């Protein structure tokens, strides 16, 4: 730092260095976008994403260069880290935003009260009309039954692992839960198919699908519940035990209430994960255009299968195509509502500190 001109500019306080104004980052960003657009136009690139990548690179490089000149190396590195985080964030958000945008734009065309409250019945794929009532009903029943099966098993397993599990058995259970986490949904479907339909000779039904969905759901519930139980401070367990409360009551009255918010969130997210599963449903529930409210007998419709079939049969346009998007929008909305409910419950049930 023997550069004379730099030393001259340095203000008298050694704690204050040269800083670029707040709008600097925005200015560089704007410049980078303009340049990116210019370059891609000049080079004849017609993709809608290439200019953004060029702009991102320009932005990171530009802000580092200018900042290094004016503010110094350390601040420049800091800026680079910040801009990398922003670029990563934008790259992550773009597909998500565009997916939601596309789904909403195409989905709202036919999504109305009639669509939600009527089945396809005998409406042909090329004809307009019909709805997804039968598919919503099927998905709700299948997911509901899967939840009823998976939640008690999952939560009790987690309680065993955290509160009681010592030694070999706990290790083995943990291992199997890890393995289950990695099971592809089609394999879970094939397992139930061979057991339930091929060996036990049962027919297609919503319940068969629910069993496969439960297999997918259990490890997620175990994992998230385990994490939440581990967050409960040991002091609370000891406080309860020291009052002469038996261990099982300590778990029910102290440990679970303290962590119920997080456990519920985990369950909701697990439900959201299985609600869109297609493979097991395809193998085990099959599909129908009619309303079948009985999940224990005969094929049932479901949103993922409905979307798939409508789309396949549409040839990329027409009434069936619109219905596929509207059903997709319904499924996304369902999952988003579940997420919001989960957040609401987590906040509502969080241990209170208010005075």
């Amino acid at each position, binding site marked *: 730092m023997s550069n004379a001109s730099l030393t001259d500019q340095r203000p008298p306080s050694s704690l204050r260095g040269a800083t670029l104004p707040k709008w600097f980052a925005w200015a560089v960003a704007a410049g980078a976008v303009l340049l990116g657009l210019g370059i891609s136009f000049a080079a004849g690139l017609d993709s809608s994403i290439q200019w953004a990548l060029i702009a991102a690179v320009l932005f990171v490089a530009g802000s580092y260069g200018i900042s290094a000149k004016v503010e110094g190396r350390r601040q420049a590195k800091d800026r680079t880290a910040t801009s990398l985080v922003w670029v990563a964030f934008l790259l992550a958000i773009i597909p998500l935003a565009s997916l939601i945008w596309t789904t909403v734009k195409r989905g709202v065309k036919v999504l109305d009260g009639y669509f939600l409250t009527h089945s396809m019945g005998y409406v042909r794929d090329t004809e307009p009309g019909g709805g997804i009532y039968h598919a919503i009903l099927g998905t709700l029943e299948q997911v509901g039954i899967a939840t009823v099966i998976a939640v008690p098993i999952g939560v009790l397993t987690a309680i065993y692992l955290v509160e009681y599990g*010592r030694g070999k058995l706990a290790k083995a259970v943990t291992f199997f839960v890890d393995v289950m986490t990695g099971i592809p949904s089609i394999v879970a479907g094939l397992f139930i198919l061979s057991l339930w339909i091929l060996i036990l000779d049962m027919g297609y039904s919503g319940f068969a699908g629910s069993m496969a969905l439960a297999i997918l759901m259990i490890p997620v519930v175990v994992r998230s519940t385990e994490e939440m139980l581990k967050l409960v*401070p040991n*002091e*609370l*367990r*000891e*406080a*309860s*035990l*020291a*009052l*002469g*409360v*038996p261990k099982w*009551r300590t778990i029910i*009255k*102290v440990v679970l*209430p*303290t962590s119920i918010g997080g456990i519920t969130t985990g369950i909701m997210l697990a439900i959201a994960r299985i609600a869109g599963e297609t493979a097991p449903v395809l193998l085990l529930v099959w599909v129908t255009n009619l309303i079948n409210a009985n999940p224990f007998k005969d094929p049932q419709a479901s949103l993922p299968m409905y979307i798939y079939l409508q789309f396949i049969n549409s040839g990329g346009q027409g009434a069936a195509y619109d219905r596929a998007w509207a059903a997709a929008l319904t499924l996304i909305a369902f999952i988003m509502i579940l997420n919001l409910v989960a957040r609401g419950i987590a906040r509502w049930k969080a*241990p*209170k*500190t*208010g*005075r």
Partner: protein
Amino acid sequence: MAKRIDVSGLNAYYGSFLAIEDISMTVEPRSVTAFIGPSGCGKSTFLRTLNRMHEVTPGGRVDGKVMLDDENLYGPGIDPVAVRREVGMVFQRPNPFPTMSVYDNVAAGLRLNGRYKKSEMDDVVEKSLKGANLWNEVKDRLNKPGSGLSGGQQQRLCIARAIAVEPNVLLMDEPCSALDPISTLAIEDLIGELKERFTIVIVTHNMQQAARVSDRTAFFNLAAVGQPGKLIEIDETERIFSNPSVQATEDYISGRFG
């Protein structure tokens, strides 16, 4: 209500590590016994053997005898849950149940021992909170969360919770070390009142506190880190602080330690 504790030949282990070795002492009923000694000498461990909380720690193991009046807490067929109802405990950091109100915190221990009528429960809660000198401060916010109280109030809430189940003995592990001087004073006063009804054992790092609140004082020490802690001596508090019979005790008390 208050009972005598008679310990003989007690060893406590964490796995294969012997934490305290061959402890024998008597804790008199309706009195305050203080445990002092350097960190890591096993005061907490010993305290927790007195209500069978030691075995809650993974690997925790005890041999020896702890007589509560004429029953051995480690005798065959003794239910640790029942022991803990007789011998209550207050911890170093205030730990009220965060999901429960002030009222429910105090009622927590009782709700388990069977059904109580609402009016009975109200009486017990009021009596316990009064016993812990907390009633006037919280009587208007019984249904607010217990974790919203100040640290000192939380600790008194924990004491109220412990005495609500009417134990015979109350164990306190450094109950004031996380509190400010005023809250500490409040709790020391409280200990003076509680000893009319309970046998009290208190671990403290504060020599003045031991001198202020206790009738008898036990000094623990360990030869070196990794060695088991031992009881050096136990005597009237006045004797321990004026004229102890072991040199190590005098060194520790006068700060000439190590």
